[in-house]
């Protein structure tokens, strides 16, 4: 990554359609030591390396408890991580005070992501320099999220972030049964709207007949164009980097 004339603030686009300050922040996550998360049917685990930065220092804390049902591992700017940690603890306590119940993992992660997003759209702010692995267990079961400085967040079965995390990611991909490229009811959903038809989402089991029909048609006609004309699915653009 090199300096260029479009990276002096976070509210300026580059002609290539990138916001360099945000990408630099995402690079910052890769500077931190690695953290790994993995989910089973009943549990989530997060782990991080906490090697001292210099020989004579002690190591920094990088996994934090947020509430009884929720914890985070961070990578990148630990100070930003701590401030997010305090925010999340506060949210959980407030929720518990009012509703007498643990806060939903997904909704807390969304709130954090909204905060991160605001910092990418204000000239007087700086994007957060920290990646967040959020492990929680609530009424929807075990959840593992990755929160990115860009304000994006992703729901994962397994994830690794930070310095030299690619090896860990590859290992997790090889050793978990993740869905392949094929279309299944887990990997796609269809929305439909038109004349005399309200917007309808086709998801889950109700999608199965459509997929079966599609596969039957595909098998019958091998010459049919493979996909919507763009060749392979477009490679992840820089903005979507996780």
């Amino acid at each position: 990554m090199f300096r260029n004339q479009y990276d002096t603030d976070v509210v300026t686009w580059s002609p290539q359609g990138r916001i360099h300050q945000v990408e630099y922040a995402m690079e910052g996550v890769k500077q931190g030591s690695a953290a790994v998360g993995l989910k089973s049917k009943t549990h989530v685990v997060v782990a991080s390396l906490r090697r001292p930065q210099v020989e004579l220092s002690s190591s920094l804390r990088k996994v934090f408890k947020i509430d009884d049902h929720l914890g985070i591992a961070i990578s990148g700017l630990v100070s930003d991580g701590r401030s997010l940690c305090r925010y999340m603890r506060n949210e959980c306590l407030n929720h518990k005070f009012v509703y007498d119940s643990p806060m939903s993992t997904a909704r807390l992660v969304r709130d954090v992501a909204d905060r991160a997003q605001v910092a990418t759209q204000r000239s007087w702010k700086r994007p957060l320099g920290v990646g967040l692995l959020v492990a929680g267990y609530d009424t929807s079961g075990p959840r593992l999220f990755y929160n990115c400085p860009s304000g994006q967040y992703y729901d994962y079965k397994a994830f690794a972030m930070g310095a030299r995390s690619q090896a860990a990611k590859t290992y997790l991909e090889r050793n978990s049964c993740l869905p392949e490229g094929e279309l299944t009811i887990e990997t796609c959903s269809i929305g439909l709207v038109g004349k005399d038809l309200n917007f309808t989402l086709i998801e889950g089991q109700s999608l199965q007949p459509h997929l079966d029909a599609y596969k039957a048609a595909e098998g019958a006609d091998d010459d049919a164009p493979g996909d919507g004309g763009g060749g392979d699915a477009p490679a992840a653009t820089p903005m979507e980097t996780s």
Partner: protein
Amino acid sequence: MLARPPSHSPALGPGCAGPPLAEASSVSIQYPAQPTAQVPTCGAASFLVDHNAVNAPGRDPSQHTQMPYVTGSSVLALTFKDGVMLASDTLGSYGSTKRYKSFERIRKVNDRTVLGASGELSDFQYIMNLLDELTTDDFCEDDGGMLSPREIWSYLCRVLYNRRNKQDPLWNSLVIGGIEHGKPFLGTVGMIGTHYTDDHIATGFGNMLARPLFREKHSPDMSEADAEALIHEALKVCYYRDKQSINKFQLAKITEAGVSVSEPFALPTRWDYKHFENPSANAVGTW
């Protein structure tokens, strides 16, 4: 405790407010027709409104509720084997006027929660607005999440307690019933924030009239039919003895299958009981 007018009337017995018998005829002059109202039992202690306070000259001009206007009477509720049942009449009283006869005091909050209210009915409608906002928020989240009965109960406890802290109470006793993790949930909260859960709950006069019946006959594993019979009996007793009630009831059931609030119905009543024929025969001081 509430400051009340001189109590312990010799005619009516201890704890009953009222003038001595000799002055009975002047009562209606001293206390012109006013919306007297019922205060939720698990809030302030009394059912009386201090008219001197309401009419005192130079009173604080703030608009805080000092007394309720249109009120609902008891809400009865109990758990049974696979759910919760709530019942109340559909009356909104303006003092002793039967002002609104088809006011639905039991409402559905979401697919597993029902709220019943006694006390000030405009405050109840305001509370329903608050809950509708929460339900809309849940819908907008689009993650299938929904507040559980306990969460709604807990939320309402905070709302009512905070309003009493502002000296501006929401004048209600609320009953929250629902299904939580497959188990019945039944909770209540009063106008100053007093709250508890129990297997059976009754607000207002129901706490005196219906709860003794519940305590005698209720068991958590009773069948739906038994529970319905019991709550019908309790409704009837409340109707016989509570002046501010009518024979038009609604019954809500919450089970794993969902929420249902019945159409209004009436219960068969008998008024030819011997004690009803000459009610003052055994009560000194009435006529």
